């Protein structure tokens, strides 16, 4: 899973001339990519209404049917069917639901965990800060995938385990950024004034620190979303993530591997969906980061 930390923000802004044109172009890209993403999310949300078939309905008479534009394809199954005759379009739509659902919940959990620990470290005094940062440092050294695999081996392959484990491996970025801001802001005049007036740490966190962090946090969430989505997809691809019969894009790619010779679309269709999602997210995230200028980290 690639790290967004690797690309530093582009510095050295283009001098004068083409600048405005470039900015317009960037705004257009952002709108376009954002709309594309919104469309995909809508498709996933509307899956129960628009899916032409039950995603788990088996039809052994229509196994590995090709998509509509190939020889032998029909409009009954626009994207074809899989190895046991399930409709691929329906499964992709439901797969989007699963992937976005797991990723969004996992990310939410990690953000809550990270923000909480970050605030604790930033506002809780020197020793708490030291302890929290040591834990964070050690945690960063451990490969995410390994932690995920251990958690799954220990707790099983239910969806809530995926959500919790994803939250558990992704919190440190949020903890760092929140702690940094908290350390900086607690010296600020208005925070000191608030404290002098008897504001509790919780009040200060809610009233003064988190609002200042809103935009970098949003950028960070956007930037880390594709990575988290790929965690679910990857684990499902390996067979230890979302379990059948629940439709999952990663699982579909993994299961379709054995049928590449006579049905590339079994793996191909969900692959295209995943590539579209991650690319669009990457574009939106990059554009947002250029505006807010925050370093995302994976």
């Amino acid at each position, binding site marked *: 899973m690639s790290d967004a930390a*690797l690309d*530093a923000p582009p510095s050295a802004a283009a001098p004068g001339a083409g600048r405005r044109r470039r900015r317009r172009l960037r705004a257009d890209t952002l709108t376009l990519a954002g709309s594309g993403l919104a469309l995909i999310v809508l498709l996933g949300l509307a899956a129960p209404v628009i899916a032409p078939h039950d995603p788990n309905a088996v039809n052994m008479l229509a196994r590995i049917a090709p998509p509509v534009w190939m020889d032998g394809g029909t409009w009954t199954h626009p994207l074809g069917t899989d190895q046991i005759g399930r409709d691929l379009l329906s499964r992709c739509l439901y797969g989007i639901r699963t992937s976005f659902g797991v990723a969004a919940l996992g990310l939410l959990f990690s953000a809550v965990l990270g923000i909480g620990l970050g605030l604790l470290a930033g506002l809780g005094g020197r020793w708490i800060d030291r302890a929290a940062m040591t834990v964070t440092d050690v945690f960063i050294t*451990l490969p995410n995938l390994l932690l995920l*695999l251990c958690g799954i081996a220990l707790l099983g392959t239910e969806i809530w385990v995926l959500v919790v484990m994803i939250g558990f491996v992704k919190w440190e970025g949020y903890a760092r950024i929140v702690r940094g801001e908290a350390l900086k802001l607690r010296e600020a005049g208005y925070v000191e004034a608030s404290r002098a007036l008897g504001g509790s740490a919780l009040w200060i966190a809610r009233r003064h620190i988190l609002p200042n962090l809103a935009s970098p946090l949003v950028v960070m969430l956007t930037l880390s979303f594709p990575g988290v989505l790929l965690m679910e997809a990857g684990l499902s691809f390996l067979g230890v993530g979302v379990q059948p019969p629940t439709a999952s894009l990663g699982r579909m790619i993994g299961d379709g591997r054995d049928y590449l010779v006579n049905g590339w679309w079994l793996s191909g269709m969900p692959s295209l969906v995943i590539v579209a999602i991650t690319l669009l997210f990457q574009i939106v995230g990059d554009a947002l980061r250029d505006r807010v200028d925050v370093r995302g980290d994976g």
Partner: protein
Amino acid sequence: MARFLGWRLLRALATMLLVLLIAFATLRYSGEPFDRMFPHGVTVEHQAALERKWGLDQPFWAQFAAYLRGLAVGDFGRSLFTGERVWAMYAERMPATLAVGSLALLLAIAIGIPLGALSALYRGAAGERAAMGVAFLGYAVPHFVIGIGLILWLGYYARALPTTGLATPAHYVLPVITLAIPMIAGLARFMRAAMLDAIAQDYAVTAESKGLAPGRIARVHILRNAMTPLISVLGLEVAGLINGSIFVEAVFSLPGVGRILVGAVEDRDFAVLQFGVIAYAGLVVAINLVVDCLYVAADPRVRLEQDA
């Protein structure tokens, strides 16, 4: 400098100790080993005798100490299922993983770094835009999708290359490329950004205004300064390679370590899993340590900062 490295070494040791603790706790508190070993049940006396024999009646820390003593002499336990020695299982699979991983690393460095450097020097050219567009794509697409795409294109459609196992040198081509592509993209993107940073610095502008040849500026002033942050990125990339190899091995059915790990998760074979965790984490910790040392050697400023 000694103090800086001493700190880093201490932290690496602390990390490893924590990893071992996690691995041991996972192993110790995962399900009921007796149910696993004796699916038909076991008498209370027999179980008590075995617990005494294996030291399971000892307190947690005593067991942990015994576990560490075992590791120190190379005793990593046996698989809960096959009874095979865990160490032997991994040793058998290690060569495949190392071969594919190191080839991919070399390939990525050989292509990614020059690509990024050139694209920074020729910023805005049509070829540069195309290259960075492709890099963007390679950066966002996961290993398993790249691998399946390559199998379809070069394996089945063009029938140019074999797609499973590692029987001949030709078998290495697709897995190595698959593993290298995201890394090439990442390195190129990073190198480009670092070069652009260096180009905008005062010393580069000075060098240009005093009339140095562009080639010399690029080599001496820009490239050198852009290389330093690259060290830590390479460390990250190697850690990423470890993740990627698990997927690449699954896609191409390679006889590597990643397959053991995934199998161990499926079987919930914690004895096998814990070794993988220790080995992978150890590798990452070691890489970080090496990166820190290289960093200090390459950039005296780091040394001064840390000693101050």
